[in-house]
């Protein structure tokens, strides 16, 4: 039957068993990249950066996984899973690099499963419960725009592995941002109900945005994207105040995820994520 050739052609060259473990692209993005930390590059800084960005991705992926079997339409199940898988893939690569450069030689699972909430360095926006679809889309819009801007900068990182991870991530994140932006506009400019829900979502997300810019100079890019989307959607810009980092003050200010200060939502999220692994600490899976 000649029709069967269609699928053969489409699937050609993708017999790689590990394809789904890497999100989109089917090749190993670190193939051929030298893992040695170059002269003059602070390994500790690279490690801290990878850890924080890895935590952001893992926690975000976990929230996206919660939409499984609850998405508003079957096509969105596939789309949200794609985004979740991309982020999970990024987390794995980042944790992998962390283990290579932080002196511990730990594997990805050690970071994901055997650290406590206070050790996590994700931004708090990532750990908030998923809420309704409007909230999740709004959160995804903010986080993906922010992460894309960060990754674009990191493609020039002096650490070759981090640069390679960022280069792969940029393509994925552009897609995530596009997906979120299109949905934000549909919901903002859809029905009265969807508009109302989007307004609420923006109000809920707002307070957690300042934290994103404390350590990274990407505010302008992110604001530009948000402005463009909210205008197209007929929505107000979210309001936030710049968030001071506690580390520069000495006195711990509440709520910077990058400092290990989290909301009450992270602990239950991690309990679910880590429970089975921790019940069998010596096991391989």
């Amino acid at each position, binding site marked *: *039957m000649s*029709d*069967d050739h*269609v*699928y053969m052609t489409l*699937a050609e060259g993708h017999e790689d*068993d590990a394809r*789904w*473990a890497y999100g989109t692209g089917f090749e190993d993005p670190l193939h051929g990249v030298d893992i040695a930390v170059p002269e003059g590059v602070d390994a500790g800084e690279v490690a801290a950066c990878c850890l924080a960005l890895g935590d952001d991705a*893992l926690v975000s992926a*976990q929230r996206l*996984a*919660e939409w*499984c*079997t*609850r*998405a*508003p*339409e*079957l*096509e*969105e*199940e*596939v789309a949200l*899973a*794609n985004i*979740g*898988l991309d982020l*999970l*893939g990024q*987390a*794995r690569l980042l*944790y992998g690099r962390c283990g290579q450069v932080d002196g511990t030689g730990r594997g*990805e*699972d050690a970071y*994901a*499963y055997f650290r406590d909430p206070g050790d996590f360095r994700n931004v708090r926006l990532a750990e908030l419960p998923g809420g309704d*679809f409007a909230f999740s889309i709004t959160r995804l819009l903010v986080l993906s725009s922010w992460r894309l801007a960060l990754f674009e900068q990191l493609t020039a990182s002096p650490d070759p592995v981090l640069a390679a991870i960022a280069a792969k991530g940029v393509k994925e994140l552009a897609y995530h941002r596009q997906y979120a932006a299109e949905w934000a*506009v*549909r*919901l903002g*400019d*859809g*029905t009265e*109900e*969807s508009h109302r*829900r989007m307004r609420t979502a923006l109000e809920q997300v707002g307070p957690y945005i300042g934290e994103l810019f404390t350590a990274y100079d990407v505010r302008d890019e992110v604001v530009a994207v948000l402005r463009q989307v909210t205008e197209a959607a007929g929505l107000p810009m979210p309001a936030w105040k710049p968030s001071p980092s506690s580390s520069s003050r000495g006195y711990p200010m509440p709520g910077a995820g990058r400092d290990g200060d989290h909301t009450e939502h992270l602990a239950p999220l991690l309990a*679910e*994520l880590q*429970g*089975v*692994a921790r019940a*069998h600490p*010596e*096991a*391989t*899976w």
Partner: protein
Amino acid sequence: MTKTDSASSAAGSTDPRLDGHDEQDLEQHFDATIARDQRIEPRDWMPDGYRKTLIRQIAQHAHSEIIGMQPEGEWITRAPSLRRKAILFAKVQDEAGHGLYLYSAAETLGADRADLTQRLIEGRQKYSSIFNYPTLSFADVGVIGWFVDGAAICNQVPLCRSSYGPYARAMVRICKEESFHQRQGYELLMTMMRGTDAQREMVQDAVDRWWWPSLMMFGPPDDASPNSAQSMAWKIKRHSNDELRRRFVDMTVPQAEKLGVTLPDPELRWNAERGHHDFGTPDWSELQRVIKGDGPCNAQRMERRRSAHEEGAWVREAASAYAAKQSRRAREGAA
């Protein structure tokens, strides 16, 4: 270009309906196509019964894929390694995709996906009984891959030669992905069986719970399966329930031996004379109860599907409203 109505014809200068070809001739042509093992395509004439049976079979297959996301999907957030998390996440995503391919095939026959979803939610259409069982540990994820995807492959590979073209083509795509799923499930079990005592116990426990329900996936015994004969005559179904069940057992026993697990059937043994394994009789009354809605998780599965669909309504409506606004703006802009 002129739109024609149904009374005129594209076939030379004759309209077959006016030319003495009646339904009997159409039916003969249909039967001959089936007999030659050729495909029926969406715009071909087909008996009503064939269309209805196909819609029901394809829809129930699609519903199974979607409902099947639930027992495994529950474990994505708890998967004990990032690699397993990614694999499981991808597998469940594939299942959503399979459901979509199958609904798509059903729609070529004139069904409407929203209507099929409604029938599922109201209990007027069914899904595979196997998904009414709970997943109690992470080992269940591996065993589902091994048994349930294994059984599905036994069932589905022959459907790649189903008489209805879109269904057969969807099955080709699905089979490729499902063989990957089965391998991943089995690989997880191999890893666990080579692991800690607790992991080995977890695997054996999962096997004990999933073996019989998996055998029941193939449906009631042939002598209790009234619809099968017509489906087989139409080549919608290519093998009988018992044949497929036998094939599954024969395939799985050596895999179990390699794994080092015991299948919970004292009557299971190789019969050299027959060249097949003998095995015990499933509890058909359990299958009946589960099909009728009285399984461990029926209510929960339906409730999840129903609430996702209902809670998603405002989102779907918003997207439709936006699309309508954009169309109107485009028309007004062009005016």
